[in-house]
């Protein structure tokens, strides 16, 4: 059911944003998978088997993210996900990603001792090849940590074709590079409800 056509990865190192140069740069990694949309051009009432079938891809993508972060994989503090559905599909085809994408990252991080009580924020849209999506990022264990509200603008040149879907996963090593607008700090996270 899953026909993988292309994988695109990106690692971004942010050293400064006009302020003091960080001792260790903020690293933001993303992985995109371009797959065939098995439901292109028709209405499929039952999307649940597709959701299940995507689990191995979600796991592989999450593992690639950890590999991309390499020595910084233990520092992961925020995450996000997204999907862009080609124009012969419907946005609902992208929303199947909530389970296989989100839980793959959470399970993998939990196994490495990183608590992930917070929901994985997401965006999904329909679009032609080269469509850009703003993937929201938030703290892995407490959604209200203000310093970690962030966004990665992602796309794959030439994808999705009409019969394709692009799924994205993203992880970062921390707060915005010069975060200074107050709010809940990561040091003050209680870690009980995924929010604070």
């Amino acid at each position, binding site marked *: 059911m899953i*026909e*993988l*056509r*292309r*994988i*695109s*990865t*990106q*690692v*971004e*190192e*942010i*050293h*400064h*944003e006009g302020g003091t140069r960080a001792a260790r*740069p903020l690293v933001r990694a993303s992985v995109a998978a371009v797959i065939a949309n098995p439901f292109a051009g028709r209405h499929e009432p039952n999307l649940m088997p597709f959701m299940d079938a995507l689990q191995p891809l979600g796991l592989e993508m999450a593992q690639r993210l950890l590999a991309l972060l390499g020595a910084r994989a233990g520092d992961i503090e925020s995450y996000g996900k997204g999907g862009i559905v080609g124009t012969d599909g419907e946005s609902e085809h992208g929303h199947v990603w909530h389970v296989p994408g989100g839980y793959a990252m959470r399970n993998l991080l939990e196994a490495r001792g990183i608590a992930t009580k917070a929901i994985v924020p997401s965006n999904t849209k329909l679009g032609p090849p080269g469509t*850009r999506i703003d993937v929201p990022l938030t703290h892995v264990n407490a959604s209200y940590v203000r310093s970690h509200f962030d966004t*990665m*603008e992602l796309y*794959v*040149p030439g994808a999705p074709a009409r019969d394709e879907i692009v799924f994205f996963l993203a992880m970062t090593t921390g707060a915005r590079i010069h975060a200074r607008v107050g709010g809940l700090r990561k040091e003050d996270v209680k870690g009980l409800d995924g929010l604070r």
Partner: protein
Amino acid sequence: MPANIRKIVVQVDETLQEMGRAVTPPVRRAVAMAVIENPCAGRYVENLDELVAIGEELGKLLGERCIAALGIAGGTAESYGKAAIVGENGEMEHAAAILHPKLGAPLRKVLEKGAALIPSAKKRGGPGTAIDVPLGHKDAAWVRSHFDAIEARVSDAPRANEIVVAVSVTTAGRPLPRIGGRQKHEIKGEDGLR
């Protein structure tokens, strides 16, 4: 003065199939981009040596980043290309100073060879401007299967006083090439063309 680097972005694009046909092994293309301060922004500077030196620094840095991201030995890379996007307070000549005089030698050193011209592109633009980096075989510019392009873009750069510098390195030419011309097994690798 070393380059004042605000951020580095490295992308790897891996094509596993085209039109239902497997691409074996998958074609993998890396593009490494540095967002730097333009030390000559906003004024006319006659001597561009500072930018030339930055080009030399980035040829090595971005070439090494591409090879690391592809996980290959430099000598096994097949094609390459380079590009720059100058922010609004800079001039095209600033991109030329980075790309042309000295960026190539350290990049070729990373790739162990590189007899061919490194194809390039440059433009002026604002944050999020995309540039198509031309790609050609690193030892013979006429290898037809390796004429390609990869889009480079950083969503929040270049600001007016910045330059985005991109270097791309690949493991292969286009997926499923079949339009004839010179093939890579025919490369002599002496004059950079054939």
